[in-house]
């Protein structure tokens, strides 16, 4: 027992502030130095999930729902115009809301969210990162967010993976079991974009083919910090919906 108590107090307090900047090497948001872009279109060709389109000003536009941050477009870019910054691509709210995703990480009293995890057909990378949210460095509980065992207790559902045929029914049933109001978060490129493995006999598609998606988190997998941003945005969105439904 003494060893245990010793272990608890051995280190400093480990919990950190949420930081959406990765390490130097991290392949984060894609940027384009347009002056150097020679419009060769090579990036479109090599992108395995067709996440890049060119807009009317000949600038590449990245669809972060699909992007898996593999770096192939950067390697292929003849003019070295495309590059990864080490900033995380932040979650986006897809439904109408006044919540500002960039400002949600401030700890505020009175905010809470109960979340159910739902694996719709993931490779388990997103799930492992969700598991990491409870470790002492991220300590999700301090934000008032906790994972619950049943969708009946949940305000939000956090879905990982592309929806498979074998799980389609379970996805529906989980959503149906939740009380209104409810928030749906699509985590990672599979759930958000659904293009990772292409179209197969076993895949239904991205989550929005099955459920109304409110928030998506880019990444393959997203880092834990991006997931926390999404969860806090979901908490604010949930509050907004509760108020508009009249149950304050």
């Amino acid at each position: 027992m003494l060893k245990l108590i010793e272990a608890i107090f051995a280190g400093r307090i480990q919990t950190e502030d949420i930081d959406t900047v990765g390490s130097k090497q991290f392949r984060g948001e894609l940027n384009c130095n347009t002056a150097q872009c020679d419009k060769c279109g090579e990036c479109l060709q090599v992108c395995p999930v067709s996440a890049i389109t060119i807009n009317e000003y000949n600038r590449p536009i990245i669809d972060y729902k699909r992007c898996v941050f593999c770096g192939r477009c950067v390697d292929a870019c003849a003019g070295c115009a495309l590059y990864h910054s080490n900033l995380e691509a932040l979650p986006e709210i897809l439904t109408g809301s006044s919540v500002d995703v960039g400002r949600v990480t401030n700890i505020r009293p009175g905010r809470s969210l109960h979340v159910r995890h739902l694996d719709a057909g993931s490779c388990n990378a997103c799930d492992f990162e969700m598991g990491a949210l409870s470790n002492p460095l991220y300590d999700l509980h301090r934000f008032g967010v906790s994972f619950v065992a049943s969708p009946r207790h949940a305000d939000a559902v956090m879905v990982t993976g592309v929806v498979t045929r074998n799980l389609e029914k379970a996805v529906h049933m989980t959503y149906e079991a939740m009380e209104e109001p409810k928030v749906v978060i699509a985590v990672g490129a599979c759930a958000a974009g659904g293009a990772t493995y292409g179209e197969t006999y076993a895949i239904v598609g991205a989550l929005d083919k099955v459920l109304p998606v409110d928030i998506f988190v880019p990444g393959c997998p997203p880092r834990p910090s991006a997931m926390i941003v999404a969860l806090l945005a979901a908490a604010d969105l949930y509050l907004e919906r509760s108020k508009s439904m009249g149950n304050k």
Partner: protein
Amino acid sequence: MIKVKSTGLRGAANVCSHNGRNPLTAMFACDETVLGQGYAIYCLFEDCHAHDIQVVRAQFEMDEELKYESLTPLFPAAAWYEREIFDMFGIEPLNHPDLRPLVLHESYPEGFYPLRKKVAVDANIHGEREFKIATAQGEGLFEVAVGPIHAGIIEPGHFRFSQAGEAILQLDAKLFYTHRGIEKAVEGKTVDEALFIVERICGACSIANTLSFCQAVEKLSEKSVPRRAWVIRTCLAELERLYNHVGDTGNLCAGVGFTVPNNIGARLKELLMRCNEQVAGNRFLRGMIVPGGVLFDIDEEKRNVIASTLDTVEKEYERLVQILSEQDGFLNRVKNTGIVLKKTATDLSMVGVGARASGFSRDSRKDLAYGIYPELSFDVITEQAGDVYARLLVREKEVRESIKLVRQILELINSEDNSGLRAADLTYRAEEGSWGISESARGSDLHWVMLDKNQKIYRLFVRSASYPNWPALPVALHGEIIPDFPLVNKSFELCYACLDR
């Protein structure tokens, strides 16, 4: 390769298994009708002494009836492989003891065999087939159903316990919920395009899957992988084993609600994941290994990050190990729980931690001696008891071995000149099968690849480490109680994603 007619499969397999001394490593089918040869079933046996894998290929002629004598009565390890082959190809094993569906659940029709070449990759076929769960019937018996959506943050699987009071009489696991049709999805893609998908079969085995796949295709090429690339690949493979084993040690404690070591494990894993990101740009080490080598080097700055992370993790992990070894309440739960006998482990051709904890010494790093492993110094850890504690001990000791290995590798990277990172412009021999293997944190991970004349994937078969170990879980739980299920399950720590594909 030994080629036989379909009727000769059983005999040839029996000979190759060397009276059961050579474990059945994998078994799969291939639709070669497009190549004018009908269907074929491949059996791979591991010859540990010759450091090689023996392949038996049984050929069905174009108009031959797709039936053969089941191998399961000879090798229990063949049971799931044969069920999968029947599901995916419709090749029927006669006298199979349990030919229920395995991969395709209720929403698929009977007679839909997706891996046949004439079925389109995006075939949108719906139906209703029967999917029976095995249960025990009798007076006083009752069933407990769990999943596929669980209470914690884990992958989906359905478990049906048949209970005689507190004791588990029988457990049937319905898996393959995350079946994404990956083996079909990569068909017709180039090696580089397929690599991207292979890397995403499973998160926790990203490196192992990529490494197996790359080795398989590299054998079909004339060019050799630069030494520097192999040194770096080995470093990545050991970093993957480390974060898995360290995290799994902590996770196992969650199975008995022992939160302090659980959190120490989670924190150490996080340190290793951050180290991964600094090395590869991705916390799961994705985007570094490619056919022919690796994409970038581990420079001095990264080496320092790895070295200092290892120092921290080593010190604190030893503290964790000591805590676990001194807590009687914890030891009481893990000792004698979830026992897998050596006989069971060999019958099921188990791999990895699961096999080694039952005294079945298998490690593809030694047995098949790939890459630079033969010149590195490390021990294969075995335990005899086969219980949860034995699997924990194997992991604990393997963490030490992996730390030792990474330090040796860092020394190599430091002292050797950069001999080039990647052999470029690989071309591959067509219509020839090739296997690649690597030792993931869960055991050996085998890929088998065949390319067509246009250098596109004709067939990819993936047998992850979890595949042969899953059938051991119900055996380990015989007579145990349901509250021990999470504990025993976590002690194996099997992937669903790389099983389901």
